[in-house]
């Protein structure tokens, strides 16, 4: 089956088997390996990307369901020289250790901050319910999201 996806601003038309997951298209066919897979029950959030502006688990979306959609992955939000404020906040607050949960965590956090105002610590913790991190104890992730909220409000993305 053919699907057309606009990934990080570039349109791709790809021929994929009907049972292909979006995450496999991203990682396998497009080589965007920043999106990770950490579970098989749709719970860890390592695979989170934005689909038409919403954070979704790319391991639980079929390529066909995403046909015609715009997808943004961790590779599409900033680069080492031009970080998204959320990426910068993660670095500045040491919100990552092994880095495996980080892309999904950042994509979730951006969606969370973009869709809510005046998040406090508790709201951030609840908002990140769908993302597991085994390294950081979440302490610095929460700090980073709160810091990024400020920066994003002040004109960043």
């Amino acid at each position, binding site marked *: 089956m053919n699907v057309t996806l606009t990934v990080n601003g570039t349109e791709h038309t790809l021929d994929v088997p009907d049972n292909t997951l979006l995450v496999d298209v991203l*990682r396998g066919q497009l080589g*965007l*390996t*920043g*999106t*990770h*897979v*950490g*579970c*098989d*029950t749709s*719970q*860890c959030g*390592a695979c989170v990307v934005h689909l038409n502006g919403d954070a979704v688990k790319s391991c639980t979306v079929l390529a066909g369901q995403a046909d015609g959609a715009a997808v943004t*992955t*961790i*590779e599409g939000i*900033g*680069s*080492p020289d031009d*970080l998204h404020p959320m*990426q910068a906040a*993660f*670095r*500045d607050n*040491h919100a*990552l*250790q*092994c*880095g*495996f*949960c*980080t*892309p999904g965590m*950042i994509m979730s956090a951006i969606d969370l901050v973009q869709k809510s105002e005046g998040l406090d*610590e*508790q709201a*951030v*913790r*609840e908002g*990140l*319910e769908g*993302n*597991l*991190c*085994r*390294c*950081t*104890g*979440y*302490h*610095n*992730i*929460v*700090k980073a999201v709160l810091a990024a909220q400020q920066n994003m409000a002040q004109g960043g993305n």
Partner: protein
Amino acid sequence: MASQNGIGAAVKRKEDARFITGMGRYTDDLGAHGQTYAMFARSPHARAKIVNIDTAAAAATDGVVAVFTGADLKADGIGDLPCGWLVKSKDGSDMIQPPHPPIAVDAVNYVGEPFALVIGETLAAAKNGAEALSVDFEELPAVVDLASAARTAQIHETVPNNQCYDWELGDKAATDAAFEKAHHVTRMDIVNNRLIPNAIEPRAALGEYDAAAGSHTLHTTSQNPHLERLVLAAFVNVAPEAKLRVISPDVGGGFGSKIFVYAEETAVIWAAGKTRRPVKWTAERSESFLADAHGRDHVTHAELALAEDGEFLGLRVQTIANMGAYLSTFASSVPTYLYGTLMAGQYKTPAIYVEVQSLFTNTAPVDAYRGAGRPEATFVVERLVETAAREIGMDATDLRRRNFIQPTDFPYETPVALTYDTGDYEASLDKALAHVHYAAFAQRRDASEAAGKKRGIGFSCYIEACGLAPSQVAISLGAGVGLFEVGEVRVDVTGSVTVVTGSHSHGQSHETTFAQIISEKLGVPFENVTVLHGDTGRSDYALGTYGSRSLAVGGSAIVKATDKIIAKGKKIAAYMLDANADDVEFEDGSFNVTDSNQSLTFAEVAFAAYVPAKYPLDELEPGLSEKAFYDPPNFTYPAGAHVCEVEVDPETGVVEVVQFVAVDDFGNIVNPMVVEGQVHGGLAQGIGQALLEHGVYDDTGQLLSGSYMDYTMPRADDLPSFTVDTTTTPCTHNPLGVKGCGEAGAIGSTAAVINAVTDALGVASIAMPATPETVWRTARGE
């Protein structure tokens, strides 16, 4: 120059640039031309004989490249997976190590044990092939309950009573005598719950075989690629050591579970040689649950003898430790040398006797998981101490102070084989109490009470032994490997530096902290230092990362290498400046001749070493690259005070951790930001053990908590923000004065949480994890 990115600075991490932009390279991100995919067929039974495996239909499945059973590996000379530490029983006999073929041959002994391997052109083909295998199992009754495991069916032919060993430590007679004169004895039965490690990156492997060179390359998620290589070469016979390269690229967390040499990685690299095709395997999370080595799982009876004034007189501990179905790589050492030796805790208990019986059960192998033995020991000691205080009506912190080893007592020899070099336990406790506002706790408790909640506070003053050492002592106690670390400092021609370390970072930030050491010692700008790790093709043989050893052992090796660089640099500089080498000092990144204004920069000396125009070639080799091995003379002893405050909703049993304070003494600190992060992560795991996490098998040996649907991982909203602080007594015997911080959070916290919950409920004990239903029932007096 204590450079601004030197030791002690909260430098932002080098590794982050790639991780926050999605440019990390983890094993599953790699691929090789023509790669195939492996799928393991796993036992659905906890215990069964394999009567027959019919592979015909699997082999005939579309897209299947090959099907291998345990018999195929065995026929090819592939050996058993060994255990690296030989523990001896009380009677002097060696522990019994049952055969552990990577792929089961005659019998399966836990649910999830692989019994065949299917290689497919695609993952789907491999899965289809695995499903097409037809296996005739003869099911046998499973041994699951640990407490009774010595008295039920025998799992392995060679292991009577399912007993691996029956070990002891300490002076039994002296301890018995201490109990005889006790004024009070506190007795407890303690179950330390089984945990499943759950690094968020599942294990993975990509095996490749170069037929022309006859060499194998294995990319895998290992914490210690050299160990993997050694075991695969020397014990498992996959390939000669020289023909096997093991590379751990970016690794997404380990917590111990990625130390071990497992069936899957072994089979993948072997199969790559057999099929002459690259073979890739990535665990699905359900496989991680079933087949990663689990942690903890002890049943213990412990007793503490006290004098009338609260002085500890003696401690007696009897533990049954679960090994699971086979001995994993370091399983035997965890409940013995990493557990029994820690029973003195921070106290001057004069007589201690520990007995540990390790038993096999039909469950996944159990091995080191963050803290490895030390959390279990801390849990025993700190639960006993807190309970004793309540029983004799003394404040729990006062009882601890009454018994602390004092700063003047160091070096302090414990009755359980360790010599603590330094510490100030009261300083940490004082600081923790100040942070937690202990004096105002009673008021907070009243406020909770008024709101229908129960508030409790609990303490845990833990000690740990890190950087397992020295090699000769460990080897005399049964270790099969040396415990040193290697560090290589290669000064580049232009004066930048490449460091190669044998330790490995899977979250610990080596690329940053090791660069800070170089920057501090050599005055080289932090940006100009690159740290390489995780590749047997790059570094000398070393032990990798476990047991909070990277900085204390790996960092020390690097310091030793920098000392050699400086010594050589001085000679070069002296020659270039026509001075006496003894008159050259190295400071702030330059070589200066004392009492003169002559000096050369580090870069100038480096350049001269590689372009030896004016250079004493007849006395000195060109180049500026040095390597050092460091074998520590002793463990390091991080210690600290953890305080937990909880609020319990007695109606539902929900426990909320409202405050958690950790004050730790890690000796000197290279990067406080990184250290705090390590503590946070450990605390989450320790709190997780106390309240959430539980690996549960049913009576037939089926894993009930086999996915994130049932195994409770700590999530952001389960935890509070933590208060983390430090005190400092530098380690006395390594050049950095550092102790290690990777496990402390997981070691100290669990007891503090349970002490707080039992305080809130006013009960002597509660089962772990203290889940809502457990708490609800306990609150009702059940």
